């Protein structure tokens, strides 16, 4: 009865050697107009992705909402097509157009199949070069965004992270500026036109392609985006003088079913020698399902559906934050447990097996996150503007594997002291 004999089940199968990352550097071109192009090529792909990245994030804008509205208005009409015609054409080809603004950048992305790209590219070029910002659609756009803003303002987690962000960088600094509902009424088309003219320029923009990038496709892009001209000069870089004050901020929300909590501080930038080690420390603390915060607050105490910590690097500053939503009645206890975990990392060395688990886990994450040209292009996107190339990820993974127990404790003592953190709580359980 061979089929009823169980294999040994209480010992894990032995593990293979960690696999090395196999990375391809993108092919790089610079067009005559200064636009930098990065191509991640795989001839077997039918899916095609196109990401245009402008140095036109919210840190650059003259007043709140200007950056995201300028980008958001590009598909609302060009000198050649109305908004309706643009979307009809793009959607006819089964394609999707996305736009997103971060603090550093504005992203305009197109997903389509390789057959239709050449028909869609001219439309995207029009949006970048000849947007018309029609008044009627601008009003409509603002109304829709205001509605979204009001809806988000009723979400505890959203409110908490907005307030945290202002406190993290300083509300008067480029990264910390916060939009309010009143800002929707202060915006006008002239502001968007000026912002478009000054910041959507080829010299400071990047194009990332992923999919089956034939020479023909490069030629078409050259004929379109390669001809994009702008008279504007490169804008003077902004100064981010982070103004962070640790402390506590409580925002009362009468119908809250849970308390939304964010705890964190600014940390080192990406080129700092502590950065990669801090990634390991962050993972251990709250960066994966087996993290200390998750095991304590969720798996042991049941205070929350989830808790996580993250490192959010920008070009001129890096944020570190822990966020969670917990039952009203355990708000205080949850904050205590978060502090306990921070103190424990400062006071006691981590276990060897725990550290090894995190290293192996991160090795798997890197393999996964860099699997295939689409993922590689995505990871490359987060390096734009830093001067790093794809070898950054090899260096990062090597540094992660070399991180020691004493590195972890040293970094915890340097960066995770609860007294140096800002805590924001939105809910109806006061924390004082």
């Amino acid at each position, binding site marked *: 009865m061979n089929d009823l004999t169980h294999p040994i089940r209480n010992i894990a*199968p032995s593990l293979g050697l960690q696999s090395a990352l196999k990375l391809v550097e993108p092919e790089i071109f610079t067009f005559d107009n200064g636009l930098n192009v990065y191509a991640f090529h795989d001839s077997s792909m039918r899916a095609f992705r196109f990401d245009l990245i402008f140095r036109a994030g919210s840190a650059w804008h003259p007043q709140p909402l200007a950056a995201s509205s300028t980008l958001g208005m590009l598909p609302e009409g060009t000198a050649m097509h109305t908004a309706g015609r643009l979307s009809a054409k793009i959607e006819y080809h089964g394609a999707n157009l996305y736009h997103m603004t971060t603090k550093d950048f504005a992203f305009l992305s197109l997903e389509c199949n390789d057959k239709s790209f050449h028909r869609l590219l001219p439309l995207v070029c029009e949006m970048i070069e000849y947007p018309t910002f029609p008044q009627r659609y601008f009003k409509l756009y603002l109304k829709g965004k205001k509605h979204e803003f009001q809806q988000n303002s009723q979400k505890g987690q959203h409110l908490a992270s907005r307030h945290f962000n202002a406190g993290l960088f300083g509300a008067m600094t480029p990264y910390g500026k916060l939009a309010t509902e009143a800002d929707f009424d202060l915006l006008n088309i002239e502001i968007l036109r000026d912002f478009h003219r000054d910041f959507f320029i080829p010299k400071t923009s990047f194009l990332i392609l992923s999919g089956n990038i034939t020479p023909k496709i490069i030629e078409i892009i050259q004929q379109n985006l390669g001809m994009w001209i702008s008279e504007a000069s490169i804008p003077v870089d902004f100064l981010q003088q982070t103004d962070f004050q640790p402390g506590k901020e409580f925002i009362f929300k009468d119908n809250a*079913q849970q308390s939304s909590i964010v705890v964190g501080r600014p940390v080192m930038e990406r080129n700092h020698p502590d950065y990669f080690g801090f990634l390991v420390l962050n993972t251990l603390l709250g960066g994966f399902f087996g993290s200390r915060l998750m095991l304590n607050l969720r798996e042991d105490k049941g205070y929350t559906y989830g808790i996580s910590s993250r490192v959010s690097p920008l070009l001129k500053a890096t944020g570190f934050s822990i966020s969670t939503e917990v039952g009203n009645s355990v708000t205080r206890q949850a904050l205590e447990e978060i502090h306990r975990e921070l103190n424990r990392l400062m006071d006691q060395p981590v276990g060897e097996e725990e550290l090894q688990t995190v290293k192996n886990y991160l*090795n798997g994450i890197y393999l996964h996150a860099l699997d295939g040209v689409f993922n590689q292009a995505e990871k490359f996107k987060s390096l734009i503007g830093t001067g790093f190339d794809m070898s950054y990820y090899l260096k990062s993974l090597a540094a992660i594997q070399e991180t020691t127990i004493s590195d972890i404790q040293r970094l915890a003592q340097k960066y995770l002291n609860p007294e140096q953190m800002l805590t924001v709580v939105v809910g109806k359980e006061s924390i004082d």
Partner: protein
Amino acid sequence: MVTFDSFTLSNGLRFFVHRDVSSPIVAMNVLYDVGARDEHPDQTGFAHLFEHLMFGGSVNIPRYDEPLQMAGGQNNAFTNSDITNYYLTLPAQNIETAFWLESDRMLNLAFSAKSLEVQRQVVVEEFRQNYLNQPYGDAWFILRPLAYKVHPYQWSTIGKEISHIEKATMEDVKSFYARFYNPNNAIVSIVGNVETHQAQKLAEKWFTPIPAGPVNRRLLPAEPQQTQARFVETKQKVPAHAIYKAWHIPAYLEDEYFALSLAANLLASGRSSILYRELVMRKSLFAEISAFTTGNLDPGLFVISGKVMPGVDFDKAVTALNETLMRFLDKKPSPSSLQKVKNKMETIEVFDNISVLDKAMNLAMYAHLGDANLINTISRKYRDVQAQELYETTNLFLNESNCSTLYYLKEDE
């Protein structure tokens, strides 16, 4: 083209294997044929609560996550009305760890009292976070029982109410496991750089010793045909008035389903869609509008929902929505608009089958539907829909007597 092999073990467990040599990662998906529709009306939310307990330790392995993370892997799971689905990815050289972990929790659980107690609380917090602490978060708790009078789709996967989750006992947990978590009630798919004979050898080693369980016959009450329009109104603290309309439609894979799914796309997918163009762009009556089919394995719903633009009269917005819908039903879609939504389906198919994990999840789901090769052919079903057929089908189903309407109104300030 996703080519695959399949084999079945003596205990009834079915495997589907697709080799993808380009990836260093292998994905395993384990689908159990049990969902919220299999719950007792007084114990709703149980299938989902159970999904949490599957991570609380199995008979020989105290914690599921730790060894997987040590092997460089990650995992997650989801439950819906129809199925419970577990999936993981890890570096291909550690594939045996996946077989070891998944077979042990199919063999038996540790049934720890602590895990049950904690996960009950975790799910209660999930309930609060995703449904109660969000504007409009409870809309489906009102809409489902309005549309379904007898079928279990009348409750949400998270459960009808928090108390059902709080009351779950260890005895309930054990009998649920004994009934549904058996090899003959599951499908495993594997995608990555693995050959079928290797996968089969590992499958036999780890899964064959697990005994088959009882055969479940699903005897769910069929929802009787709705003959009269249904309507309910609620007033809450939300930023704007909203409307939800739901019509009964056939199950996923029924012939009519594909025409209805395309119709939902024609109505509200993208800025060139009919409702968006008319109600958002042209008349500015709505801030958001959406339409979709639920795609359930038993007869599901066709849903249109919209948030009214603040300041706009609610009745005026509703009238415009109904009129626009009537005009849509009144004539066949144009050839170009039909082609547009078919093209969209094709793009979705292309983007949906890139990663090893997506392919593994799709393979298992289509195998569960009865034909794993649907992963390659499903877009044909959309492509074959004719304008006349779409016209007739939408008129057959999208009428008021088959509709449940929810007015979700903003409280006066």
